[in-house]
């Protein structure tokens, strides 16, 4: 946006110096704000790479934590635990989220639809620690002990509203003419939704799912008293399980240098996974809009 106006032949009154200086100062301040905001981002990423890469080695990726005082060991069980918890969360959260999104887009132009839309937005704003309390109340108390399942349920609750709302938005982008064309061919409604509408919006829906995934992948608070953490390998759904983010937290607040070193390495792995997911979202979104919306 440029403020230079082509000459019209009228003599424009000169803009006073005070106004020009003020304009320049504000521009400078805005640019300064951008730099000030990007500074911590740069600092965080730089430190993660600087501290993380140094502590990253094969043992870190293949071994379980060593007891305090012994050097070495790694977070392999936490990486696997995170994968297990996220798998459980996605298995529960993705179908429900997409289903609710389909309901809102295809059948939800009524009171109930509006109520669900509203509650989805409410659910989106619930602090993650509160979700942890609820998962504790439902699963942990029910089972009698901490478990990967409880962690998965907590993360699923956090995934559902994001997936629901993005799925709805993406489905609404599909032109009605496409639906009508399907009905005109005698295709039944459920078939139209699944094979025509949802199919057209696939990349957008996937974007939503990955966004939700990236959002919960680094969550720690809801796992504190659901998955709880574990020093050993665990593949059982109903046992306490380590998670990458939990391990980073535990190590970061510990008093041991060796653990601090590993916390940085764990954080680096965590952020690499998330940046990868977010970049993939960008890519899918930029392609998906072209394919789905027009």
């Amino acid at each position, binding site marked *: *946006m440029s403020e230079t106006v082509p000459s019209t032949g009228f003599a424009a009154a000169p803009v006073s110096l005070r*106004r020009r200086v003020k*304009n320049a100062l504000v521009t400078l301040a*805005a640019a*300064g*704000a*951008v730099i*000030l*905001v990007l500074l*911590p*981002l740069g*600092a*965080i990423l730089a430190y993660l790479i600087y501290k993380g890469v140094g502590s990253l080695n094969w043992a870190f990726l293949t071994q379980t934590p060593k007891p305090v005082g012994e050097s070495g060991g790694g977070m392999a069980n936490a990486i696997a635990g995170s994968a297990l918890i996220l798998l459980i969360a996605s298995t529960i959260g993705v179908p429900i*989220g*997409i*289903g*609710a999104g389909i*309901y809102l887009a*295809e*059948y939800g132009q009524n009171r*109930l*639809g509006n109520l669900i839309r509203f509650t*989805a937005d*409410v*659910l989106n*704003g*619930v*602090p993650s*620690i*509160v979700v*942890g*309390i*609820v998962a504790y109340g439902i699963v942990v108390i029910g089972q009698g002990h901490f478990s990967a399942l409880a962690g998965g349920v907590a993360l699923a609750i956090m995934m*559902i509203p994001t997936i629901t*709302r993005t799925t709805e*938005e993406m489905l609404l982008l599909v032109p009605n003419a496409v639906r009508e064309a399907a009905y005109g061919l*005698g295709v*039944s*409604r*459920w*078939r139209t*939704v699944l094979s025509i509408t949802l199919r057209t919006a696939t990349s957008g829906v996937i974007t939503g799912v990955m966004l939700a995934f*990236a959002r919960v*992948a*680094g969550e*720690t*608070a809801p796992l*504190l*008293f659901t998955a709880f953490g574990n020093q050993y390998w665990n593949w059982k759904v109903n046992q306490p399980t380590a998670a990458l983010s939990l391990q*980073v*937290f535990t190590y*970061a*607040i510990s008093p041991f240098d060796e653990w*601090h070193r590993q916390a*940085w390495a764990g*954080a680096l792995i*965590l952020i690499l996974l*998330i*940046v990868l997911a*977010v970049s993939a979202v960008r890519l899918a979104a930029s392609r998906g809009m072209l394919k789905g919306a027009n």
Partner: protein
Amino acid sequence: MPGPQPVLKSEVAAKGKAQAEHLVNSGSSHVADRIFYLAMLACGVCVLGLVGLIVYELVTKSSLSWHAFGWRFFFRSDWDPVNEQFGAFPFVYGTIVSSILALLLAVPLAIGVAVFITEMCPRWLKGPLAFTTELLAAIPSVIYGLWAIFVMVPLLRTYLEPFLVRYFGWTSEITHRFGFQGPFEGPPFGIGMLAAGIILAIMVVPIVSSITREVMTAVPQQQREAVLALGATRWEMIRTGVLRNARAGILGGVILGLGRALGETMAVTMVIGNRPEIAASLFAPGYTMASVIANEFSEATSDAYLSALVEVGLALFLVTIIVNILAQILVWSVTRGMPARSHV
């Protein structure tokens, strides 16, 4: 496009009839439709049920503490699990102070960033800048906490806090007259309310700036052109033409940021010091509602203790819900003419 094949009319009619019959007879699409509808409805109702479940869980599990203390729970400041005396005032205080501090720091920066990206920066820089600021929102809070403990807190301890004491320490002389500690008084630990406020500010900026950007984009282009045509400078155009029109939405973004700051757990827990004390000094350690749950929930042994923690959670839940609803109404009031967009 090749022309249609010449077909006899009667042939078409016969074919159409056959197709219609085939469609009517083929399968039980009516039943399938019904089943599909019910399945999708179930998913939708599930979302509704989840919120209901959250409320139910929080209310029933906190009833013990509610019956024991009532409203006084939020105004008492003793937190004594051994004698089962619980008052959440230090946590409420810590949550409010750290969030307000975060907003004070974050809002001017976030609006500056939004103004720069939407109105000032060259076109080619827009996308990358928007992406990078949003990347800040994608960093998990535990990583913010890790960075804050090992990088930011030492910086605060050695540079910022001594600087504040030196140049703003005089404020304590004023507050002493009213019987308070000054905001920049006491030993500079690094860890404490100030650290929590700063790390929260960094986390809140991307939320506020992305909403601000969205509502600024919603302001019609003609507004800008009209103000520029009157001879305004770019800043005057932004101030009168854009910011003034978008102010309700910007306020919505700020409140949404507040909602995030109130509920934020990990990063704050790692740097605030976790001491249930009320101190006027920003250097002193504090405690927030979310952190007390994070730290003590899995160690709470007695029912009353657990119930008190759940009540803190219930209060946190209710406050963030109200704040979020308010924010959504404000944002919606500006962008309602625009197509829906996800703001994640």
